[in-house]
């Protein structure tokens, strides 16, 4: 067995396309494993289904950060820091028994050519009666200290920089918006961004014994992360990562079940012949005329849109297809061979003949077909999602394409949104197809080129 595997592998190595295919599939598997480990199912679903409360710190419709590499005008990258997890430095000094003084400082290097969307502070304060007092200011690279907010901070106080009256009136005289005012060079009449180190300074005072101040600073740039964000500020990393295991599972389960069942049914039909065979053939012929996609759409519309229900329906509809006829043709040929008659003569049961004699002869023909039919199931899932029949719960590539389509991503220029899942779909298809074609050559000697 091991020797056979080794030989097969040595044979496969002769086809560079197979190596590329194997590498692609291997990387997809790694990605899938990483996705499942990094975002366990419940966490992924919570994140994906979550709204503003989960994703408030992300910008909307932000392309991935790496798009800056291809732009001459760099866009500001989104980020957020939090004093609760230590990314925002917090210094507490004790003033009196009931009073503490807080200082939060954060320096960031601003190198973009355009303005961010907004800057935002989310306070998370604890007090019983007396609100803490905070003072927020931003120091620009040329040393100007611009006061942003001064006043009491409630438990869930938000400070949106663009809505600070102080800032609006300060920059309105120069005909600039708040962001332009903060991030462009005040000495030039044209609006040119001022690059350099900006420092956010927040000082606060609490007036109660158990009072505390925590703050989260969100810099809403116009590009975000590795995958960008969608209309609900969700990080597209989640559907991109989670789409991998779902696509692989859907594809593998779909093609494996379909092919195995097809083969077993074809074997049974051609072995017993008679009415069994006729019945299978008639079912196949009827099924061949039934429209595949409309039936799935009906199942999705009237029954369930769960990905597994759809997969089951797709498998059932895919069993009785032309494949059953071609398998039957080969089985009819094998059935007449000497060793089958010998097996019958020495009293092998029908079950034994079908599963030990007929089907093993078919396995070599099955493997390439199996590999190359995986992409068709992966694409099926995506097609159904684009048709609006995607699983409403799961984050998948198809669902992402659907979202992008519905929100006019291509029309509005959010190409990343559509291209990322589409590219992954194509790569998956390519990987399996490349391996499948090579396996076909390995296992089907008639195709072997000398």
């Amino acid at each position: 067995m091991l020797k056979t595997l080794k030989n097969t592998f040595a044979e496969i190595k002769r086809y560079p396309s197979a190596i590329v295919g194997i590498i692609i599939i291997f990387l997809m598997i790694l990605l899938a494993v990483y996705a499942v480990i990094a975002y366990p199912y419940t966490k992924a679903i919570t994140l994906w289904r979550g709204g503003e409360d989960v994703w408030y710190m992300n910008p909307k419709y932000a392309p991935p950060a790496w798009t800056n590499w291809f732009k001459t005008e760099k866009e500001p990258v989104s980020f957020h820091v939090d004093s609760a997890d230590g990314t925002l430095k917090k210094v507490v000094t004790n003033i009196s028994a009931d009073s503490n003084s807080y200082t939060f400082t954060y320096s960031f290097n601003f190198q973009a050519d355009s303005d961010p969307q907004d800057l935002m502070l989310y306070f998370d304060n604890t007090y019983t009666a007396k609100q803490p007092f905070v003072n927020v200011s931003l120091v620009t690279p040329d040393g100007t200290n611009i006061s942003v907010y001064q006043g009491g901070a409630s438990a869930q106080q938000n400070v949106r920089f663009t809505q600070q009256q102080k800032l609006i009136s300060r920059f309105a005289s120069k005909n600039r918006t708040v962001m332009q005012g903060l991030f462009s060079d005040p000495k030039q009449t044209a609006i040119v961004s001022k690059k350099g180190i900006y420092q956010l300074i927040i000082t606060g005072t609490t007036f109660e014994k158990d009072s505390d101040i925590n703050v989260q600073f969100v810099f809403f740039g116009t590009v975000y992360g590795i995958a960008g964000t969608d209309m609900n500020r969700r990080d597209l990393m989640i559907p991109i990562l989670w789409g991998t295991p779902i696509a692989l599972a859907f594809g593998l389960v779909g093609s494996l079940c379909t092919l195995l069942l097809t083969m077993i049914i074809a074997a049974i039909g051609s072995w017993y012949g008679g009415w069994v065979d006729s019945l299978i053939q008639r079912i196949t012929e009827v099924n061949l005329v039934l429209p595949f996609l409309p039936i799935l759409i009906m199942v999705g519309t009237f029954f369930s849109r769960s990905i597994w229900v759809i997969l089951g329906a797709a498998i059932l509809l895919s069993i009785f297809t032309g494949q059953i006829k071609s398998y039957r043709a080969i089985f009819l040929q094998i059935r007449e061979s000497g060793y089958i008659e010998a097996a019958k003569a020495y009293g092998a049961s029908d079950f034994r003949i079908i599963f030990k004699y007929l089907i093993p002869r078919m396995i070599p023909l099955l493997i390439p077909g199996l590999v190359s039919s995986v992409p068709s199931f992966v694409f099926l899932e995506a097609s159904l999602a684009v048709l609006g029949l995607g699983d409403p719960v799961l984050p998948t590539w198809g669902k992402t394409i659907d979202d992008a389509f519905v929100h006019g991503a291509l029309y509005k220029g959010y190409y990343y949104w559509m291209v990322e899942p589409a590219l992954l779909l194509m790569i998956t298809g390519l990987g399996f197809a490349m391996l499948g074609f090579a396996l076909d050559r390995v296992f089907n000697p008639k195709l072997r080129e000398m």
Partner: protein
Amino acid sequence: MADKPLLQVEDLCLYFRTTHGNVRAVDHVNFSLDYNKAVVVVGESGCGKSSLTKAILRLLPRNVDTYTGKVYLEGKDVMTYSEEDFRLKVRWVGMSMVPQAAMNSLNPVIKVGEQVAEPALIHMGVTKKEAVDLVRKMFQHVGVPEVFIDRYPFELSGGMRQRVAIAMALVTSPNLIILDEPTSALDVLTQANIFNVLKRIKKELGTSFILITHDIATSSELADEVAVMYAGQMVELNDAFAFFKEPLHPYSKKLMASVPRLRTEKEPEFIIGQPPSLVDLPAGCRFKDRCPFAFDRCKQDPPVIVKEGRSVRCWLYA
């Protein structure tokens, strides 16, 4: 047991349905075979020899029209068995078979050791390990080196594959083995070898054989009795010694005359004409158109004449 023969075939008929009409491949065949005896069935191609073995082992194709008669194996009427009973109680238990073109009767994707073990696993309820021991023993019987257990059929020569097929027939130690042309397509040395193996098995294990062959000369090595088939009928059943000395039926005489001889000037003869079509059989004796002794009475169907333990289907002996 002794009063009942090992195998008794009575009025066995096997007709196939074709577009041209019914093919009467086996037409009212009667014979019996004792323990530890070998009967050689000879005859031209297409005279129903292989169909006879198929009828006895009930390995029927799909286009069977008529399948009647009685087959007693060790006194039991196996024709009344259901398909499942037949499979479990007769095939390879009571009698086994080395199929025609035994080289193709080995599954190309299973190792030969495993293949030979299959009947034992199916019928004897042994474990895989016991089966392998059994296979080793059988390989010794037929003279196949033990290392071949782990080889695939394509790695074996024709003669070795033939021996493996015989080992497969032996593995459940049945009393009767049907060999359908076991030595066709083998060279003379290998043929002689195989026949030595068969002779030894017969002597050591007391097995009976039904041997289907074209090769009258080689089969004389093993035969206790000779049966001659012509156009679906058994035209002669004779003691081997008597048969080779003096065949009775004109067809048998012609058949024997067609065997080339050493040390005589006599040219091998051939029989003019073709055997009749099994679809459209002539009335009366089926051999009469080619028979040099044909006379008026041959227009009627000849009876089976039993004389001194020899049976012959010819008016000459009436």
